[in-house]
Protein backbone atom coordinates (compact mmCIF):
# COMPACT_ATOMS: atom_id res chain seq x y z
CA UNK A 1 0.00 0.00 0.00
CA UNK A 2 1.41 3.36 -0.95
CA UNK A 3 1.70 5.93 1.78
CA UNK A 4 -1.14 8.07 0.65
CA UNK A 5 -1.00 11.59 2.17
CA UNK A 6 -4.42 10.94 3.71
CA UNK A 7 -3.14 7.82 5.43
CA UNK A 8 -0.06 9.65 6.63
CA UNK A 9 -2.26 12.40 7.99
CA UNK A 10 -4.27 9.84 9.99
CA UNK A 11 -1.10 8.26 11.35
CA UNK A 12 0.26 11.66 12.38
CA UNK A 13 -3.03 12.59 14.04
CA UNK A 14 -3.00 9.32 15.98
CA UNK A 15 0.51 10.13 17.17
CA UNK A 16 -0.52 13.69 18.01
CA UNK A 17 -3.38 12.54 20.23
CA UNK A 18 -1.33 9.75 21.79
CA UNK A 19 1.79 11.77 22.52
CA UNK A 20 -0.30 14.72 23.73
CA UNK A 21 -2.29 12.59 26.14
CA UNK A 22 0.86 10.78 27.26
CA UNK A 23 2.62 14.05 28.08
CA UNK A 24 -0.34 15.32 30.13
CA UNK A 25 -0.84 12.04 31.95
CA UNK A 26 2.89 11.81 32.71
CA UNK A 27 3.05 15.37 34.00
CA UNK A 28 0.13 14.56 36.29
CA UNK A 29 0.75 10.88 36.95
CA UNK A 30 4.44 10.68 37.84
CA UNK A 31 4.40 13.35 40.57
CA UNK A 32 1.13 12.05 42.01
CA UNK A 33 2.33 8.44 41.94
CA UNK A 34 5.65 9.37 43.54
CA UNK A 35 3.93 11.37 46.23
CA UNK A 36 1.58 8.49 46.95
CA UNK A 37 4.46 6.06 47.22
CA UNK A 38 6.65 8.20 49.47
CA UNK A 39 4.07 9.78 51.74
CA UNK A 40 2.10 8.19 54.51
CA UNK A 41 -1.32 9.58 55.20
CA UNK A 42 -4.57 8.22 56.57
CA UNK A 43 -6.69 6.51 53.95
CA UNK A 44 -3.72 5.77 51.74
CA UNK A 45 -4.94 2.25 51.13
CA UNK A 46 -8.26 3.53 49.88
CA UNK A 47 -6.54 5.96 47.53
CA UNK A 48 -4.35 3.15 46.27
CA UNK A 49 -7.42 1.04 45.61
CA UNK A 50 -8.93 3.97 43.75
CA UNK A 51 -5.88 4.26 41.56
CA UNK A 52 -5.79 0.57 40.75
CA UNK A 53 -9.49 0.70 39.91
CA UNK A 54 -8.82 3.71 37.70
CA UNK A 55 -6.25 1.69 35.77
CA UNK A 56 -9.16 -0.35 34.54
CA UNK A 57 -11.53 2.49 33.70
CA UNK A 58 -13.67 1.43 30.75
CA UNK A 59 -12.53 3.88 28.03
CA UNK A 60 -15.95 4.11 26.50
CA UNK A 61 -17.41 5.25 29.84
CA UNK A 62 -14.69 7.89 30.07
CA UNK A 63 -15.65 8.93 26.55
CA UNK A 64 -19.28 9.19 27.54
CA UNK A 65 -18.52 11.31 30.60
CA UNK A 66 -16.20 13.58 28.61
CA UNK A 67 -18.85 13.86 25.94
CA UNK A 68 -21.46 14.91 28.51
CA UNK A 69 -19.06 17.44 30.03
CA UNK A 70 -18.13 19.00 26.70
CA UNK A 71 -21.55 18.83 25.08
CA UNK A 72 -23.20 22.16 24.40
CA UNK A 73 -25.68 21.25 27.11
CA UNK A 74 -22.89 20.21 29.47
CA UNK A 75 -20.94 22.22 32.05
CA UNK A 76 -17.84 22.68 29.88
CA UNK A 77 -19.72 23.24 26.64
CA UNK A 78 -18.39 26.77 26.31
CA UNK A 79 -14.87 25.42 25.74
CA UNK A 80 -16.05 24.26 22.32
CA UNK A 81 -13.75 21.24 22.43
CA UNK A 82 -16.21 18.56 21.37
CA UNK A 83 -15.42 16.82 18.06
CA UNK A 84 -12.00 18.42 18.13
CA UNK A 85 -8.61 16.99 18.91
CA UNK A 86 -8.69 18.66 22.35
CA UNK A 87 -11.59 16.46 23.43
CA UNK A 88 -9.75 13.34 22.28
CA UNK A 89 -6.60 14.31 24.19
CA UNK A 90 -8.67 15.07 27.28
CA UNK A 91 -10.42 11.70 27.21
CA UNK A 92 -7.20 9.82 26.58
CA UNK A 93 -5.45 11.71 29.37
CA UNK A 94 -8.18 10.65 31.78
CA UNK A 95 -7.82 7.06 30.63
CA UNK A 96 -4.02 6.99 30.83
CA UNK A 97 -3.37 9.01 34.00
CA UNK A 98 -4.42 6.31 36.51
CA UNK A 99 -2.24 3.88 34.59
CA UNK A 100 0.79 6.16 34.88
CA UNK A 101 0.07 6.85 38.56
CA UNK A 102 -0.27 3.14 39.27
CA UNK A 103 2.91 2.18 37.47
CA UNK A 104 4.83 5.02 39.14
CA UNK A 105 3.49 3.96 42.50
CA UNK A 106 4.54 0.37 42.15
CA UNK A 107 7.93 1.09 40.62
CA UNK A 108 8.79 3.65 43.30
CA UNK A 109 7.64 1.24 45.99
CA UNK A 110 9.86 -1.44 44.52
CA UNK A 111 12.95 0.69 45.10
CA UNK A 112 14.80 -0.54 48.17
CA UNK A 113 13.44 1.47 51.16
CA UNK A 114 16.90 1.37 52.74
CA UNK A 115 18.18 3.52 49.89
CA UNK A 116 16.10 6.44 51.02
CA UNK A 117 17.15 6.09 54.61
CA UNK A 118 20.78 5.90 53.59
CA UNK A 119 20.49 8.96 51.37
CA UNK A 120 18.80 10.91 54.13
CA UNK A 121 21.49 9.78 56.56
CA UNK A 122 24.12 11.01 54.14
CA UNK A 123 22.51 14.42 54.26
CA UNK A 124 20.54 14.46 50.99
CA UNK A 125 17.59 16.83 50.92
CA UNK A 126 14.11 15.45 50.53
CA UNK A 127 14.11 16.64 46.93
CA UNK A 128 17.45 14.97 46.14
CA UNK A 129 16.22 11.77 47.75
CA UNK A 130 13.07 11.76 45.64
CA UNK A 131 15.01 12.31 42.44
CA UNK A 132 17.39 9.46 43.25
CA UNK A 133 14.50 7.16 44.00
CA UNK A 134 12.87 8.11 40.70
CA UNK A 135 16.14 7.44 38.94
CA UNK A 136 16.28 3.99 40.47
CA UNK A 137 12.68 3.43 39.42
CA UNK A 138 13.26 4.65 35.85
CA UNK A 139 12.95 1.27 34.24
CA UNK A 140 9.50 0.71 35.69
CA UNK A 141 8.51 4.21 34.65
CA UNK A 142 9.58 3.61 31.06
CA UNK A 143 7.56 0.41 30.97
CA UNK A 144 4.62 2.41 32.25
CA UNK A 145 5.00 5.06 29.57
CA UNK A 146 5.21 2.51 26.80
CA UNK A 147 2.22 0.65 28.16
CA UNK A 148 0.36 3.96 28.30
CA UNK A 149 1.34 4.73 24.73
CA UNK A 150 0.08 1.35 23.59
CA UNK A 151 -3.22 1.63 25.37
CA UNK A 152 -3.87 5.17 24.14
CA UNK A 153 -3.06 4.60 20.50
CA UNK A 154 -5.18 1.47 20.30
CA UNK A 155 -8.21 2.93 22.07
CA UNK A 156 -11.27 3.37 19.88
CA UNK A 157 -14.49 3.83 21.86
CA UNK A 158 -13.71 7.09 23.62
CA UNK A 159 -12.11 8.84 20.65
CA UNK A 160 -15.01 7.81 18.43
CA UNK A 161 -17.49 9.30 20.88
CA UNK A 162 -15.76 12.58 21.63
CA UNK A 163 -13.86 13.03 18.36
CA UNK A 164 -16.63 12.08 15.96
CA UNK A 165 -14.25 10.46 13.45
CA UNK A 166 -14.41 13.54 11.21
CA UNK A 167 -12.31 13.19 8.11
CA UNK A 168 -9.30 15.50 8.10
CA UNK A 169 -9.93 16.59 11.68
CA UNK A 170 -10.46 13.85 14.20
CA UNK A 171 -10.08 10.61 12.29
CA UNK A 172 -7.38 8.42 13.81
CA UNK A 173 -6.10 4.93 13.04
CA UNK A 174 -8.55 3.04 15.21
CA UNK A 175 -11.62 4.93 14.08
CA UNK A 176 -10.45 4.57 10.48
CA UNK A 177 -10.42 0.80 10.97
CA UNK A 178 -13.99 0.91 12.27
CA UNK A 179 -15.13 3.11 9.41
CA UNK A 180 -13.53 1.05 6.64
CA UNK A 181 -14.99 -2.10 8.15
CA UNK A 182 -18.43 -0.53 8.24
CA UNK A 183 -17.95 0.56 4.67
CA UNK A 184 -17.15 -2.97 3.67
CA UNK A 185 -13.61 -2.01 2.60
CA UNK A 186 -12.02 -4.79 4.60
CA UNK A 187 -8.69 -4.55 2.78
CA UNK A 188 -8.29 -0.89 3.67
CA UNK A 189 -9.41 -1.63 7.24
CA UNK A 190 -6.78 -4.32 7.43
CA UNK A 191 -4.15 -1.94 6.05
CA UNK A 192 -4.93 0.56 8.80
CA UNK A 193 -4.80 -2.28 11.31
CA UNK A 194 -1.37 -3.28 10.06
CA UNK A 195 -0.11 0.30 10.39
CA UNK A 196 -1.42 0.32 13.94
CA UNK A 197 0.44 -2.92 14.64
CA UNK A 198 3.62 -1.55 13.09
CA UNK A 199 3.48 1.55 15.27
CA UNK A 200 3.00 -0.67 18.34
CA UNK A 201 5.85 -2.94 17.25
CA UNK A 202 8.13 0.05 16.76
CA UNK A 203 7.29 1.33 20.23
CA UNK A 204 8.03 -2.01 21.79
CA UNK A 205 11.32 -2.21 19.89
CA UNK A 206 12.27 1.14 21.41
CA UNK A 207 11.30 -0.22 24.81
CA UNK A 208 13.43 -3.31 24.41
CA UNK A 209 16.30 -1.09 23.30
CA UNK A 210 15.95 1.10 26.37
CA UNK A 211 15.64 -1.93 28.56
CA UNK A 212 18.92 -3.32 27.25
CA UNK A 213 20.71 -0.04 27.80
CA UNK A 214 19.36 0.53 31.27
CA UNK A 215 20.17 -3.07 32.14
CA UNK A 216 23.79 -2.53 31.17
CA UNK A 217 24.22 0.74 33.02
CA UNK A 218 22.67 -0.49 36.25
CA UNK A 219 25.41 -1.58 38.62
Amino acid at each position, binding site marked *: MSLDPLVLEIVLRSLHVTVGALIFSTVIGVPVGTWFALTHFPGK*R*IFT*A*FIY*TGMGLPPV*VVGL*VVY*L*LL*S*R*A*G*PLGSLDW*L*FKIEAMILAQTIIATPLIIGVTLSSVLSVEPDLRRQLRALGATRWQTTLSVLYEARFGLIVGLVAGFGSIISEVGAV*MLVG*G*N*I*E*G*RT*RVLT*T*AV*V*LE*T*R*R*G*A*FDLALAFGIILLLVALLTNAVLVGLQGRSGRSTP
Partner: protein
Amino acid sequence: MSKPSKLYLIVLFTLLLSLTACQTASPTPTATVAPTAEPTAEPTAEPTVEAADAPQTLRLATTTSTDDSGLLDAILPVFEEEFNVTVDVIAVGTGQALELGRNGDVDVVLVHDRAREDAFVAEGHGVARFDVMYNDFIIVGPEADPAGIADSATAVEAFTTIAGAEAVFVSRGDDSGTHGREKSIWALAEIEPAGDWYQSTGQGMGEVLTIANEQQAYTLADRGTYLSRLGENFELVILVEGDDSLLNPYGVIPVNPEKNDSINGPLAEQFVNWLTSVETQELIAGFTINGEPLFFPDSETYRAAQE
Protein backbone atom coordinates in the same frame (compact mmCIF):
# COMPACT_ATOMS: atom_id res chain seq x y z
CA MET B 1 -7.01 -11.17 50.65
CA SER B 2 -10.39 -10.52 52.27
CA LYS B 3 -9.53 -6.99 53.37
CA PRO B 4 -8.47 -5.59 50.01
CA SER B 5 -11.42 -7.17 48.22
CA LYS B 6 -13.87 -5.52 50.60
CA LEU B 7 -12.09 -2.25 50.02
CA TYR B 8 -12.30 -2.79 46.33
CA LEU B 9 -16.05 -3.23 46.52
CA ILE B 10 -16.45 0.01 48.44
CA VAL B 11 -14.33 1.82 45.91
CA LEU B 12 -16.26 0.37 43.03
CA PHE B 13 -19.52 1.38 44.61
CA THR B 14 -18.32 4.96 45.15
CA LEU B 15 -17.11 5.13 41.60
CA LEU B 16 -20.45 3.97 40.27
CA LEU B 17 -22.22 6.46 42.47
CA SER B 18 -20.09 9.31 41.22
CA LEU B 19 -20.73 8.24 37.65
CA THR B 20 -24.46 8.17 38.17
CA ALA B 21 -24.32 11.57 39.81
CA CYS B 22 -22.39 12.83 36.84
CA GLN B 23 -24.99 11.56 34.48
CA THR B 24 -27.96 13.09 36.23
CA ALA B 25 -26.14 16.39 36.61
CA SER B 26 -25.63 16.91 32.91
CA PRO B 27 -28.73 16.20 30.87
CA THR B 28 -28.16 13.24 28.65
CA PRO B 29 -29.14 13.50 25.03
CA THR B 30 -31.14 10.33 25.21
CA ALA B 31 -33.50 9.52 22.45
CA THR B 32 -37.04 9.39 23.65
CA VAL B 33 -38.25 6.67 21.42
CA ALA B 34 -41.75 5.70 22.23
CA PRO B 35 -42.33 2.48 20.34
CA THR B 36 -46.04 3.08 20.35
CA ALA B 37 -47.96 0.15 21.65
CA GLU B 38 -48.16 -1.91 18.52
CA PRO B 39 -50.52 -4.78 18.22
CA THR B 40 -47.41 -6.57 16.97
CA ALA B 41 -45.54 -6.23 20.21
CA GLU B 42 -47.86 -8.77 21.80
CA PRO B 43 -46.57 -12.05 23.11
CA THR B 44 -42.89 -11.56 22.69
CA ALA B 45 -42.84 -14.66 24.82
CA GLU B 46 -39.59 -16.49 24.31
CA PRO B 47 -39.26 -20.02 22.90
CA THR B 48 -42.68 -21.56 22.94
CA VAL B 49 -43.21 -24.98 24.39
CA GLU B 50 -43.82 -26.56 21.03
CA ALA B 51 -40.31 -25.54 20.03
CA ALA B 52 -39.22 -29.11 20.26
CA ASP B 53 -36.73 -28.61 17.48
CA ALA B 54 -34.17 -25.89 18.05
CA PRO B 55 -35.10 -22.66 16.33
CA GLN B 56 -33.33 -21.92 13.09
CA THR B 57 -31.29 -18.76 12.82
CA LEU B 58 -31.66 -16.20 10.07
CA ARG B 59 -28.83 -13.72 9.69
CA LEU B 60 -30.13 -10.42 8.40
CA ALA B 61 -27.75 -7.65 7.39
CA THR B 62 -29.53 -4.35 7.30
CA THR B 63 -28.96 -0.65 7.58
CA THR B 64 -28.77 1.22 10.84
CA SER B 65 -31.91 3.15 9.85
CA THR B 66 -34.23 0.15 10.06
CA ASP B 67 -32.75 -1.01 13.34
CA ASP B 68 -32.22 2.36 15.07
CA SER B 69 -35.75 3.44 14.29
CA GLY B 70 -37.19 0.46 16.14
CA LEU B 71 -39.03 -0.95 13.13
CA LEU B 72 -37.33 -4.33 13.30
CA ASP B 73 -38.03 -4.65 17.01
CA ALA B 74 -41.67 -4.06 16.23
CA ILE B 75 -42.10 -6.53 13.39
CA LEU B 76 -39.45 -9.25 13.67
CA PRO B 77 -40.89 -10.96 16.78
CA VAL B 78 -43.93 -11.84 14.67
CA PHE B 79 -41.76 -13.64 12.13
CA GLU B 80 -39.67 -15.29 14.83
CA GLU B 81 -42.72 -16.66 16.54
CA GLU B 82 -44.57 -17.76 13.44
CA PHE B 83 -41.68 -19.72 11.96
CA ASN B 84 -39.75 -20.65 15.10
CA VAL B 85 -36.75 -18.66 13.98
CA THR B 86 -34.23 -16.46 15.71
CA VAL B 87 -33.25 -13.48 13.59
CA ASP B 88 -29.75 -12.15 14.15
CA VAL B 89 -29.77 -8.54 13.01
CA ILE B 90 -26.49 -7.04 11.91
CA ALA B 91 -27.17 -3.33 11.55
CA VAL B 92 -24.46 -1.61 9.54
CA GLY B 93 -24.18 0.77 6.59
CA THR B 94 -25.49 -0.36 3.20
CA GLY B 95 -21.89 -0.78 2.01
CA GLN B 96 -20.99 -3.21 4.75
CA ALA B 97 -24.35 -4.96 4.60
CA LEU B 98 -23.84 -5.75 0.92
CA GLU B 99 -20.24 -6.75 1.58
CA LEU B 100 -21.44 -9.19 4.26
CA GLY B 101 -23.79 -10.65 1.66
CA ARG B 102 -21.01 -10.76 -0.92
CA ASN B 103 -18.85 -12.74 1.51
CA GLY B 104 -21.73 -15.09 2.27
CA ASP B 105 -21.75 -14.12 5.95
CA VAL B 106 -25.49 -13.46 6.06
CA ASP B 107 -28.63 -15.06 4.61
CA VAL B 108 -30.49 -11.96 3.54
CA VAL B 109 -29.91 -8.22 3.18
CA LEU B 110 -32.40 -5.38 3.63
CA VAL B 111 -30.90 -2.13 2.35
CA HIS B 112 -31.64 1.08 0.50
CA ASP B 113 -29.39 1.94 -2.39
CA ARG B 114 -31.08 0.90 -5.59
CA ALA B 115 -28.06 1.13 -7.89
CA ARG B 116 -25.87 -0.97 -5.66
CA GLU B 117 -28.66 -3.42 -4.94
CA ASP B 118 -29.12 -4.02 -8.66
CA ALA B 119 -25.39 -4.43 -9.12
CA PHE B 120 -25.33 -6.90 -6.24
CA VAL B 121 -27.96 -9.06 -7.91
CA ALA B 122 -26.43 -8.64 -11.38
CA GLU B 123 -23.07 -9.88 -10.06
CA GLY B 124 -24.79 -13.02 -8.84
CA HIS B 125 -24.44 -12.35 -5.13
CA GLY B 126 -28.15 -12.14 -4.57
CA VAL B 127 -31.08 -14.16 -5.84
CA ALA B 128 -33.33 -11.21 -6.72
CA ARG B 129 -34.33 -7.83 -5.35
CA PHE B 130 -37.82 -7.19 -4.00
CA ASP B 131 -39.45 -3.87 -3.15
CA VAL B 132 -40.30 -3.63 0.53
CA MET B 133 -41.12 -0.08 1.55
CA TYR B 134 -39.86 3.43 1.34
CA ASN B 135 -39.27 6.29 3.63
CA ASP B 136 -37.82 9.66 2.86
CA PHE B 137 -34.83 11.79 3.55
CA ILE B 138 -35.04 15.25 5.01
CA ILE B 139 -32.57 18.10 5.25
CA VAL B 140 -32.27 19.21 8.83
CA GLY B 141 -30.45 22.11 10.39
CA PRO B 142 -30.56 24.71 13.13
CA GLU B 143 -33.81 26.57 13.56
CA ALA B 144 -32.03 29.87 12.91
CA ASP B 145 -31.14 28.50 9.45
CA PRO B 146 -28.03 30.67 8.93
CA ALA B 147 -27.64 29.67 5.28
CA GLY B 148 -31.32 30.30 4.56
CA ILE B 149 -32.32 27.01 2.92
CA ALA B 150 -35.84 26.75 4.30
CA ASP B 151 -37.38 28.27 1.16
CA SER B 152 -35.59 25.90 -1.20
CA ALA B 153 -37.94 24.09 -3.54
CA THR B 154 -35.60 21.15 -4.08
CA ALA B 155 -32.83 19.35 -2.26
CA VAL B 156 -30.40 20.40 -4.97
CA GLU B 157 -31.23 24.05 -4.42
CA ALA B 158 -30.77 23.66 -0.65
CA PHE B 159 -27.40 21.97 -1.07
CA THR B 160 -26.26 24.69 -3.46
CA THR B 161 -27.23 27.34 -0.90
CA ILE B 162 -25.40 25.53 1.90
CA ALA B 163 -22.25 25.22 -0.17
CA GLY B 164 -22.48 28.86 -1.25
CA ALA B 165 -22.76 30.00 2.36
CA GLU B 166 -20.10 27.48 3.44
CA ALA B 167 -22.40 26.59 6.34
CA VAL B 168 -21.22 23.57 8.32
CA PHE B 169 -22.60 20.36 6.83
CA VAL B 170 -22.05 17.01 8.52
CA SER B 171 -21.82 14.08 6.15
CA ARG B 172 -22.20 10.40 6.95
CA GLY B 173 -19.15 9.73 4.80
CA ASP B 174 -19.51 5.98 5.35
CA ASP B 175 -20.76 4.76 1.97
CA SER B 176 -24.14 4.08 3.52
CA GLY B 177 -27.34 4.44 1.54
CA THR B 178 -27.90 7.85 3.06
CA HIS B 179 -24.38 8.89 2.13
CA GLY B 180 -24.98 7.59 -1.39
CA ARG B 181 -28.06 9.77 -1.66
CA GLU B 182 -26.19 12.76 -0.32
CA LYS B 183 -23.47 12.27 -2.92
CA SER B 184 -26.00 12.01 -5.70
CA ILE B 185 -27.60 15.30 -4.64
CA TRP B 186 -24.18 16.98 -4.61
CA ALA B 187 -23.60 15.54 -8.07
CA LEU B 188 -26.92 16.91 -9.31
CA ALA B 189 -25.96 20.29 -7.88
CA GLU B 190 -22.61 19.97 -9.68
CA ILE B 191 -20.74 20.68 -6.48
CA GLU B 192 -17.81 18.78 -5.10
CA PRO B 193 -18.13 19.49 -1.39
CA ALA B 194 -14.79 20.15 0.29
CA GLY B 195 -13.40 22.53 2.83
CA ASP B 196 -13.67 23.23 6.50
CA TRP B 197 -17.44 23.48 6.38
CA TYR B 198 -17.87 19.95 5.01
CA GLN B 199 -17.33 17.38 7.75
CA SER B 200 -17.21 13.77 6.73
CA THR B 201 -17.59 11.63 9.84
CA GLY B 202 -17.88 8.05 8.69
CA GLN B 203 -20.44 7.31 11.38
CA GLY B 204 -24.02 6.14 11.67
CA MET B 205 -27.09 8.36 11.34
CA GLY B 206 -27.58 8.66 15.08
CA GLU B 207 -24.01 9.83 15.66
CA VAL B 208 -24.16 12.23 12.73
CA LEU B 209 -27.35 13.82 14.10
CA THR B 210 -25.65 14.21 17.46
CA ILE B 211 -22.63 15.83 15.88
CA ALA B 212 -24.75 18.13 13.71
CA ASN B 213 -26.87 19.07 16.71
CA GLU B 214 -23.82 19.90 18.79
CA GLN B 215 -22.38 22.07 16.04
CA GLN B 216 -25.72 23.49 14.91
CA ALA B 217 -24.91 22.22 11.46
CA TYR B 218 -26.90 20.94 8.50
CA THR B 219 -27.18 17.32 7.50
CA LEU B 220 -29.18 14.93 5.37
CA ALA B 221 -31.06 12.44 7.52
CA ASP B 222 -33.57 9.68 7.08
CA ARG B 223 -36.83 10.71 8.68
CA GLY B 224 -37.03 7.66 10.93
CA THR B 225 -33.78 8.22 12.75
CA TYR B 226 -34.49 11.95 12.96
CA LEU B 227 -37.92 11.41 14.55
CA SER B 228 -36.51 8.90 16.98
CA ARG B 229 -34.01 11.50 18.16
CA LEU B 230 -36.51 14.27 18.77
CA GLY B 231 -36.70 15.24 22.37
CA GLU B 232 -34.73 16.93 25.02
CA ASN B 233 -31.56 18.65 23.88
CA PHE B 234 -32.16 18.00 20.24
CA GLU B 235 -32.70 21.24 18.41
CA LEU B 236 -32.39 20.54 14.71
CA VAL B 237 -35.52 21.11 12.66
CA ILE B 238 -36.68 19.85 9.28
CA LEU B 239 -35.90 22.54 6.71
CA VAL B 240 -36.45 20.77 3.40
CA GLU B 241 -38.66 17.76 2.72
CA GLY B 242 -40.96 16.19 0.18
CA ASP B 243 -38.75 16.57 -2.86
CA ASP B 244 -38.74 13.56 -5.23
CA SER B 245 -34.97 13.30 -4.98
CA LEU B 246 -35.44 12.62 -1.27
CA LEU B 247 -37.50 9.42 -1.59
CA ASN B 248 -35.76 6.37 -0.19
CA PRO B 249 -36.88 2.90 -1.31
CA TYR B 250 -35.80 -0.22 0.59
CA GLY B 251 -35.19 -3.56 -1.05
CA VAL B 252 -34.72 -7.05 0.35
CA ILE B 253 -32.35 -9.52 -1.31
CA PRO B 254 -31.82 -13.17 -0.35
CA VAL B 255 -28.12 -13.97 -0.64
CA ASN B 256 -27.21 -16.51 -3.28
CA PRO B 257 -27.22 -19.80 -1.31
CA GLU B 258 -24.63 -21.31 -3.62
CA LYS B 259 -21.95 -19.21 -1.97
CA ASN B 260 -21.53 -21.58 0.93
CA ASP B 261 -23.32 -24.28 2.89
CA SER B 262 -24.14 -22.16 5.88
CA ILE B 263 -26.49 -19.88 3.95
CA ASN B 264 -30.07 -20.80 4.69
CA GLY B 265 -31.66 -20.19 1.30
CA PRO B 266 -35.17 -21.53 2.02
CA LEU B 267 -35.41 -19.57 5.25
CA ALA B 268 -34.26 -16.39 3.52
CA GLU B 269 -36.95 -16.92 0.92
CA GLN B 270 -39.53 -17.49 3.63
CA PHE B 271 -38.44 -14.24 5.22
CA VAL B 272 -38.81 -12.33 1.96
CA ASN B 273 -42.29 -13.77 1.42
CA TRP B 274 -43.27 -12.84 4.93
CA LEU B 275 -41.81 -9.33 4.71
CA THR B 276 -43.60 -8.54 1.47
CA SER B 277 -46.91 -10.12 2.51
CA VAL B 278 -49.92 -7.86 2.98
CA GLU B 279 -50.09 -8.60 6.72
CA THR B 280 -46.51 -7.60 7.37
CA GLN B 281 -46.80 -4.61 5.07
CA GLU B 282 -49.68 -3.43 7.20
CA LEU B 283 -47.56 -3.86 10.30
CA ILE B 284 -44.94 -1.65 8.66
CA ALA B 285 -47.56 0.96 7.83
CA GLY B 286 -48.77 0.89 11.41
CA PHE B 287 -45.34 1.50 12.89
CA THR B 288 -45.18 5.07 14.15
CA ILE B 289 -42.96 7.22 16.30
CA ASN B 290 -44.64 10.04 18.17
CA GLY B 291 -47.69 9.34 16.04
CA GLU B 292 -45.83 9.72 12.75
CA PRO B 293 -45.46 6.83 10.33
CA LEU B 294 -41.87 6.21 9.31
CA PHE B 295 -42.07 3.70 6.52
CA PHE B 296 -44.58 3.37 3.73
CA PRO B 297 -45.32 -0.17 2.51
CA ASP B 298 -44.48 -0.69 -1.13
CA SER B 299 -44.14 -4.40 -1.90
CA GLU B 300 -45.55 -5.76 -5.13
CA THR B 301 -48.10 -7.88 -3.26
CA TYR B 302 -49.18 -4.89 -1.23
CA ARG B 303 -49.52 -2.64 -4.26
CA ALA B 304 -51.59 -5.32 -6.03
CA ALA B 305 -53.85 -5.66 -2.99
CA GLN B 306 -54.45 -1.92 -2.96
CA GLU B 307 -55.80 -1.89 -6.47
